[in-house]
């Protein structure tokens, strides 16, 4: 009973917040609505007793990804004009029917989906997980045995994307200092002895 109530609350708020994410004008509010979605999806995970996923979900999405979005929004300081529409007018006629169609299809599939028969299920039912000490431990067991390669690949993917992002966002001229004009040259013209002294006292940026 209490689970059902929790489920309904989480699901309704998640959907409403998702709607807000899509429809709210300000990007910051949109991002904050997404945080709400993330929380409630984590809540749904918790209702399913998948605490590990719930916690990781909050940590990664809310704690890292959306913060990054907010951070970027604040850093960019974008120009925004009052009269600018925030929706594609002509895309709207295409997008809304398509999204509805998608929803119908996905809903229809969901309607016709049943959990596998008892015999066909995997080895990790609630009792097995509890015996291992929780979803964290159970996940660790498959992660470092059965799925070790995908795990490593995910690590490589993260490394590659962070390097790529660094390379993209870095200004090419950030590393080098601007050429300091030689203060002595301006006055006396090139003169080896004095130019040396001049270079030594010239402050860097």
């Amino acid at each position, binding site marked *: 009973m209490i*689970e059902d109530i929790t*489920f309904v609350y989480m*699901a309704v708020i*998640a*959907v409403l917040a*998702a*709607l807000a*994410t*899509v429809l709210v004008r300000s*990007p910051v509010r*949109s*991002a904050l609505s*997404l945080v709400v*979605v*993330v929380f409630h999806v984590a809540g*749904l995970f918790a209702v*399913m007793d*998948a605490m590990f*996923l719930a916690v*990781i979900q909050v940590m*990664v999405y809310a704690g890292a*990804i959306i913060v*990054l*979005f907010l951070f*970027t929004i604040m850093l*960019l300081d*974008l*120009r925004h004009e009052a009269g*600018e529409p*925030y*929706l*594609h007018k002509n895309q*709207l006629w295409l*997008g*809304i029917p398509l*999204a509805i169609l*998608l*929803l119908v299809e*996905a*809903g229809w*599939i*969901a*309607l016709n*989906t*049943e*959990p*596998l028969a008892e015999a066909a*299920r*995997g080895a*990790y*039912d609630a009792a097995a997980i509890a015996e291992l000490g929780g979803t964290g431990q159970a*996940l660790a067991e498959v992660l470092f045995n059965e799925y070790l390669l*995908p795990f490593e690949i995910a690590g490589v993917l*993260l490394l*590659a*994307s962070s390097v790529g*992002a*660094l390379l*993209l*966002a870095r200004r090419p001229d950030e590393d080098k200092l601007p050429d300091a004009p030689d203060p002595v040259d301006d006055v006396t013209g090139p003169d080896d002895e004095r130019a040396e002294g001049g270079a030594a006292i010239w402050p860097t940026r």
Partner: protein
Amino acid sequence: MADSLNAYLYVGAILFALGMLGVLVRRSLIVVLLSMELMLQGVNLTMGAFGVFNEDMGGYMLTLASLTIAASESVVGLAILVVVSRKARELYTDRMDGMKW
């Protein structure tokens, strides 16, 4: 309700469709990226639900993988966004057609 797989799948489907809608109709590139994260939320929920109800750790694994992908994707996407905004000072998708031909 909380112990039926279909309920979770409905919520996942709604989140996914809403995300799709956002990707299609929003003009701000940032919100488009956010909507993609929303789609991933739907996907995560679906896969997690399958993992739990089929008592298989594969669903958890896929969720973790999609978390990784989401992190990578948003990092690279935001880096591109920063680069683009340096040139344009605005991020409207319908004004970005410089690579048309």
